[in-house]
């Protein structure tokens, strides 16, 4: 059923810590899958990216989004809340990827319809394993809805 046509998977990472972002990038980089990591540093940039505003006017629609909760300017919970109120953006799977183990953060995230919640492991090997698992699951195992019409080549041709 799944279409494994080799295409670049777009991953949007919302993470304010550059070292953390790089680590995620490294982990994804070790994978065999074709993916492109887009990195934004806070909630406002994330929503601009999704809405293709300003410098992001050519941004692709991400296949999956990795969202940190504690972000400057606009935090992850707000981003999640705004996305899930938007009929288009709500279809993008959101993986909350954070260091918080707090029960209230977990609960709040699922209340805001996060697709899953993952606590960043402390150990690098485990972290790499988790990033790859995310990638494998969301980009290879599940079937996602069709992408935005203006991103789909078929529509472009029409």
């Amino acid at each position, binding site marked *: 059923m799944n279409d494994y046509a080799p295409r670049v998977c777009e991953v949007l990472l919302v993470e304010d810590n550059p070292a953390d972002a790089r680590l995620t990038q490294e982990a994804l980089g070790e994978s065999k899958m074709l993916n492109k990591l887009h990195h934004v540093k806070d909630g406002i940039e994330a929503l601009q990216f999704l809405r293709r505003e300003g410098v992001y006017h050519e941004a692709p629609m991400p296949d999956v989004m990795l969202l940190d909760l504690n972000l400057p300017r606009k935090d992850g919970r707000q981003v999640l809340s705004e996305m899930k109120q938007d009929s288009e953006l709500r279809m993008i799977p959101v993986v909350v990827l954070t*260091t918080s183990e707090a029960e209230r953060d977990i609960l709040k995230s699922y209340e805001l319809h996060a697709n899953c919640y993952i606590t960043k492991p*402390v150990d690098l090997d485990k972290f790499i394993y988790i990033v790859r698992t995310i990638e494998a699951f969301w980009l290879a195992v599940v079937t996602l809805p069709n992408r935005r019409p203006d991103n789909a080549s078929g529509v472009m041709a029409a």
Partner: protein
Amino acid sequence: MSLAGKPPAEERLRERGLAAQLRATEEKLARADEDLARVLRLSHSCIYETGRDLRLTYITGDVRDVLGLEAAEMLGRKFHKLLRVERWPSVDGAKARRHAPFRNLMCRTPDGTRHIQISGTPLRDAEGKFCGYHGAVSDATALIKAEERAATNYRRFREAIECIPASLTLFDPDDRLVICNSATQNFFPGAKDLLVPGSSFEDLLRADIESGFLWKTDLSVDDWITDRVARHRLANTDVIGALPDGRWIQVIERPTTDGGVIGIRINVTEVKQKEAELEVTTRQLEEQSRDLQRSNTELEQFAYVASHDLQEPLRMVASYCQLLKRRYAGKLDADADDFIGFAVEGANRMQRLINDLLGYSRVGHRGEVFAPLLADDIVKIALGNLQAAIADVGGRVEVGDLPEINGDRTQLVQLFQNLIGNGIKFRRDEAPLVRISAVTEGAFAQFTVEDNGIGIERDYVEKVFLIFQRLHDREKYSGTGIGLAIVKKVVERHGGKVWIDSTPGQGSRFQFTLPLVDRSQSDE
């Protein structure tokens, strides 16, 4: 002769009438005699008469019963020769006048067993000249005994109220003083002279106030007195107030059954001072306790924030060290490999420390609400978590009957996990065996977790509960030394105590108490 002229029938009739009249009179007289005798008998009295020389000329009644003497032997003699006089008659305290009426010549029978009271009224002839006494002699033994008893009771009562260090006053329904003890003087310093029966409460107050002794009040003197007298009548006072001389007095007033008022005044100055001192001490203690609590909370907060915030940068250090190792191990020179190795190891150890510190500070920082828990379930969860560690060393855990306790599930799992884990970890060559049992002690369950491990030297027993205290080198027994510190903190958060007995080379026995479920409350 008119008499002779009367017809004989008429004469007879008249004689018959007189005879009947005589009979009736005699009957009346006999009846009166009987009545008198009955009255005298019932009242245990006699009546008497004397001549001018006070010698008895007549005495009647149950003379022998009352006086223990025969009437015949008394006639012609004087009372004071026959009986032992105890008190001569008096009028208003002075000796009664000669030949005056008297009521209370008090004597005793010759055998001394009975009290006799004699009264007398002088007899006078047609010219008013004294010619003797007549009067009554009665047995007053019961009366005198009752008086003696009353006097004894009164004396005891007085002695009793004199012993009271407080003032006791009794006022009658007209608010006049009936009795008070001498301690009362201390409470009415300006009215000492008025502390006698008959003084009115109002006069006492006024005299006291005039001498400058007024309770602190905003009212005028008259208003205050009116108010105070009214409250005295109500007799439900219970107040503590300050006197101008600095003393604190408690006044209690209560009604008596006949409408009088009993007043009790207690000097409570010392109590007040102690109270004030205690209040100061309590406030200081509360302040100290608050300070301590604040610094404790701050410390916990600090530990939590520090460990939480340190985790993030440390994760980076550790991750990038690991990444370096992953990418470049064996690609640089041998020194570089060593350096990277040390950096990774140091970062990892620091991570464990911070993680443990975070866990430790969470015991105080993030507790759950206590709930009734089966200790057995808690131990099962802990054993589940330790399954692999126990199996690895061929360990065995024996669990006895455990009670239901009240506590924080997560923390108690950690408590048992740390203790069992400890027993498994610090093992000797033989297979580790941990025994868990419990007994109830009042509102608490006392648990014992025993192992057959290496034990702890006596000198270190106190140290094992300190945070990051390790007794062994890292090579032999890994760990940061947080486990038992967490145990102690969890037990203390549950209001319990933890202690340890250990024989080096034979094993350790950890004992601790946890609160049992309070059934008396949960059943309501």
